[in-house]
């Protein structure tokens, strides 16, 4: 029984990786821009597809059959591309809506989600395609004593913890982070200090979406790459952000991993409840602490 609990906890932590990384990006964007980015899941999905395309299709498309851009390169290239896509979305569409009610930007990003999903369903299939580019060094398994665990999943857990801590550090402990936080608190005052606030907002959006792209690459070798992989996740991610506290970086990370764990453990005790336990907790948190566990209560 103990082994089963530990094993499901490991798997829960493994899912928590993606909850944490995605809710982190969402929290950065909401915290600094006050935009509810519904397209976050679709950008995560696009990131996974880009990794697949770089490995399997790009070479064929440009006529160099042997070209396979590997996982490590994708881990760097894809977040940059998705970040650029995010910047494009912010510059051409989102920025016109800042003066309106946040519901408008939510609707816009929801529309972008549908467009991206439709495009990938059209050009790829509705079902998943396995990502074949898992690096050789991360294949195989590790015996953890209580279970056999694939090396790659262990790597994903470690890698994402490092990324989450780094992002928290940048925003909460560095000068750039301080400027960002000040810019959202009082944009006019920060402008008066000669800081280009619109540029800062654009880059922040690009950074947040880049994180979604990074999570997508990380997910590709574990789950099949499919157009609906983001849609399956985005509702859970929103619940994680609400529980953590809208806009709280630490809240997003901690509740991401914690809810992954809770979900995993629920599978041990009462499996059918595993899909709903997160939403149940969300309701409880909203009733008791409406601003979320880590949010500033006003």
């Amino acid at each position, binding site marked *: *029984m103990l*082994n*089963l609990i530990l*094993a*499901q906890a490991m*798997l829960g932590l493994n*899912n928590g990786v993606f909850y944490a990384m995605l809710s982190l990006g969402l929290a950065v964007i909401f915290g600094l821009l006050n935009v509810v980015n519904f397209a976050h899941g679709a950008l995560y999905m696009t990131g996974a597809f880009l990794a697949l395309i770089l490995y399997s299709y790009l070479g064929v498309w440009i006529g160099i059959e042997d070209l396979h851009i590997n996982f490590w390169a994708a881990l760097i290239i894809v977040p940059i591309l998705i970040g650029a896509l995010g910047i494009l979305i912010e510059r051409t569409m989102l920025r016109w809506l800042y003066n309106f009610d946040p519901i408008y930007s939510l609707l816009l990003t929801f529309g972008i989600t549908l467009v991206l999903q439709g495009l990938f*369903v059209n050009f790829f*299939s*509705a*079902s*998943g395609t396995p990502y074949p580019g898992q690096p050789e060094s991360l294949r195989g*398994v590790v*015996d953890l004593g209580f*279970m*056999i*665990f*694939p090396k790659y999943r262990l790597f994903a857990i470690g890698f994402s913890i490092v990324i989450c801590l780094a992002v928290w550090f940048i925003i909460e402990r560095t000068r750039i982070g301080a400027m960002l936080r000040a810019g959202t608190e009082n944009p006019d005052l920060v402008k008066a200090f000669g800081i280009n606030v619109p540029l800062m907002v654009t880059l922040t959006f690009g950074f947040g979406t880049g994180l979604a792209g990074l999570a997508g690459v990380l997910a590709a070798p*574990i*789950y*099949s790459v*499919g157009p609906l*992989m983001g849609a399956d996740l985005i509702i859970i991610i929103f619940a994680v952000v609400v529980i953590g506290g809208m806009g709280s970086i630490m809240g997003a990370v901690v509740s991401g991993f914690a809810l992954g764990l809770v979900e*995993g453990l629920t*599978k041990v005790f009462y*499996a059918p409840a*595993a899909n709903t336990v997160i939403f149940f907790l969300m309701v409880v948190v909203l009733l008791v602490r409406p601003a979320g566990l880590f949010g500033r209560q006003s």
Partner: protein
Amino acid sequence: MKSVLYGSVCAAALALGANAAMAQSVSDDVVKIGVLGDMSGVYSTGFSGDGAVAAVKMAVEDFGGTVLGKPIEVISADHQNKADVASATARQWIDEDKVDMITDLTNSAVALAVQQLASEKKTITISTGAATTALTGEACTKYGIHYGYDTHALPVGTATAIVKEGGDSWYFITADYAFGHALQDNTSEVVEKLGGTVVGSSDVPLASTDFSSYLLQAQSSGAKVIALANAGQDTVNSIKQANEFGIVAGGQQLAGMLVLISDVKSLGTSVAKGLNFTSAWYWNHDDESRAWKEKYMKYSGDAAPTFPHAADYSLTLAYLKAVEAAGTDDSDAVREELGKMKIDDFFAKGGSIRKDGLLVHDMYLLRVKDGNEDPWDVAEVVRSIPGEEAYFSLADGGCAMAQE
């Protein structure tokens, strides 16, 4: 005199009437076959997809391209594994496009919906990819035919063989819809009849990507056999992840309840080696089948035929022969001919379509073997299972219409 004149007028009128009927024997001057399948999802390789369309088109060409002097047309569409999408397409095909017969219908939920709808509109459906016994059981219809296999025929071979080898406690990982539940129920029945026990099960939504937590539950249940009551990509992912998490290495045995040779090929025979599975047909079984496979691969872009593909070919020929024999594409007449025919070709040995719509024919127990020259030669035939043993009898099937 007057009566003679009257009589001849009547005769002439009758003759004219008969001519008119002959001219109408093929409605709209074309026989249209619709392939309604999963063209892009988890069942698009092996069950539906291009492979199914290729088999139907090949059969039409082999038949000569025309029947009763009228052209035969094949159309296809993707139902996306959604019963509502499938019903809308079927309705449009029957009402607007005048499709005469709908086939493939992979996914039991889809097949049940379309068979019901088509029967109300007096259109023949011949399901190949779908598995649930309900199609010819409680949901049987006058025009619905189930051709190839069902959830009763599959476990008879596989489960019997495994229980007899000592695998007497089972845990199910089940696709959470009509098909998975039917397969689990039918398999449990076989296991329990032979003295085995079922210790637990997990219901998994269709097209899940992560089976690891369900596999761990199966592992901790201590069952000797982990049965996969799913199909297509779901089966492939379950087997792959069972290997990733060291479940087979830990001494538990996997049993695929519905495995196709395309699944085995995509897993690799080294991963799937020793896996028992039941199939309605295997290309390397006899010379006739080998020859057919060679020809089929020219149509399919070098993918070997799975049993649903072979069934698609076989049923298309049977349907066209029935149209020819009936002298019309009228559904009632064609269905009657199909019931009278013996279906004895490379696919179905000694087969016949019963009153409840079920094609009863022999099935095969296969075992995955490793290290063959032909990448598609993935298995050996362990045993052939007579049709009467594999399928429900007419009385046990539960089709009220057929009991009358």
